[in-house]
């Protein structure tokens, strides 16, 4: 069953800002990483999913309904806003009780568990809290009513490595319980660690949406070959003109399927030294990102 379905969603804010013709489905139990640089449209998309804004074109369906102003849908979503703004002058604890009350949560057991997990001291006023502490409060708000679907906009921003780890554990537990998760980030390793699928957004358009394993397979191989002589490197360059040469060294990025051909050719020219590694997801991301600008 699809928990979420976006069809041809466009929200044009002018001057190239916004999202354009987004189509995306998220099935129950899916965990989707929503990746993109700042300003790519991640938050815009999540606001559409929350029903805070209406698409200019296309349709958004969450649990089969239009989420715009739909209280029933909100009940089933745990939302973490990208910006941590809180109303009024409350302490962390008072705010958690307020949000629990709004959500109709009477039992504060889960909220207290989360507070312990994130080591939150909620007695401080929200305004006096550091960014990381405020982020913890916002996270607990998203998780405290045990919803079916999580929409988390840059959930780890401001968290220290230990708390990022705690958050990763929490996400893994929720995935284990069959919850559906969408989390946005501009960090690859985070998505790689937390999600089963990744969608890459660039300038408001989804440029790739694949299972994490597929994406890992599609990573290129990066060769650094040192030949015995410069003319060998020169000869190699004629076969692979995309490579870069520095005296007798060659730098080359090729699809995984071409790796054997590179290796065989290199050996025929005489290799002094060779290193090969898989492209990191970060480099893959930059590749998608730069691809459109070139």
């Amino acid at each position, binding site marked *: 069953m699809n928990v979420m379905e976006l069809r041809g969603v466009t929200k044009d804010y002018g001057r190239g800002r916004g999202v354009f013709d987004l189509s995306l489905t998220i099935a129950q139990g899916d965990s989707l990483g929503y990746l993109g640089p700042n300003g790519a449209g991640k938050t815009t998309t999540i*606001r559409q999913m*929350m*029903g*805070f*804004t*209406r698409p200019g074109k296309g349709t958004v369906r969450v649990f089969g309904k239009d989420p715009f*102003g*739909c*209280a*029933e849908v*909100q*009940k089933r*979503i745990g*939302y973490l*806003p990208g*910006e941590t*703004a*809180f*109303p*009024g*002058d409350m302490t962390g604890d008072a705010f958690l009780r*307020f*949000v629990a*009350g*709004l*959500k*109709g949560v009477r039992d504060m057991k889960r909220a207290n568990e989360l507070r312990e997990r994130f080591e939150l001291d909620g007695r401080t006023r929200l305004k006096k809290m550091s960014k990381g502490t405020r982020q913890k409060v916002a996270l607990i*708000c998203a998780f405290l009513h045990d919803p079916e679907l999580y929409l988390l906009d840059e959930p780890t921003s401001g968290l220290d490595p230990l708390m990022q780890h705690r958050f990763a554990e929490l996400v893994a537990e929720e995935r284990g319980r069959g919850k559906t998760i969408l989390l946005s980030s501009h960090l690859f390793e985070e998505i790689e660690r937390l999600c089963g699928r990744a969608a890459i957004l660039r300038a408001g358009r989804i440029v790739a949406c694949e299972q994490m394993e597929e994406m890992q397979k599609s990573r290129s191989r990066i060769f650094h070959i040192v030949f015995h002589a410069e003319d060998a490197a020169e000869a190699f360059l004629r076969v692979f003109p995309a490579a870069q040469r520095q005296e007798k060294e060659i730098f080359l990025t090729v699809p995984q399927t071409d790796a054997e051909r590179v290796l065989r050719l290199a050996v025929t020219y005489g290799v002094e030294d060779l290193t090969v590694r898989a492209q990191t997801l970060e480099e893959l991301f930059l590749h998608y990102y730069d691809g459109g600008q070139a």
Partner: protein
Amino acid sequence: MVKHLLARSVRSNLGLLGIILAVLAMYGGIIVTMYDPELGDTLNSMAAAMPELFAAFGMAGTPATLTEFLVNYLYGFLLLVFPLVMSILLANRLVASYVDSGAVAYLLASPHSRAAIIATQAVVHIVSNWICLAIFYGGCSAFCEMMFPGELDWTALARVTLGLAAMHFFFGGLLFASVCIFNDAKPAVGVGTSLTVLFLLIQMAEQVSDKFDWLQYLTPVTLYRTTELMEGTGGVWQACVLAGAGFVMYLAGGIIFCRKDISA
């Protein structure tokens, strides 16, 4: 209505209501004690010396009774301004600050319709004003009774107070619609505030001289007929028009809030 939001909104704004009431109590107390039924009183002689200035603040003529005195010196200006200040601050706190900061996300992401959320805030906005005026009316009347037993016409003052409530309902509707229409705090608070203050200034200018009589058609404050309400000779339909227009603006603001894009 959203119970928890209502509790939160009431609790966090009680202080403001208290401050406004304290200021009104101070002015009210001073004005009432300045009333002197026997001797030619000080305020009246000051008014005779500076008729234009007093007229601008809605204080015209030389009131003879305590009721006239109150209507002249309190209901013409002070009771318009201070509750209006509260209304402006409340509209900002109840709607504009949530939307501008993005904190509205926590309200929108709760299992309540936008209509319920905005209706809750509208009720707090409206009822705070009513409570303010009711407490002032009760306190002021009781104080008058204590100082000058039997001098005050309670029902006449009640009529003027209801007219005043209608005037504030109009102002409130305008302010509320303004904070509902705009997502940025500056225009949200600015447009409503400027218009209400402008209306008051026009009213003040109009009262200074007969030459500016035409100004009365430019401000809804003209529809707040203190003298006629006090005397029981009219001002009722005007008050109804103000209240009706206020209701339409509150409703329009609410509908816009339910339909607009909110980036939070």
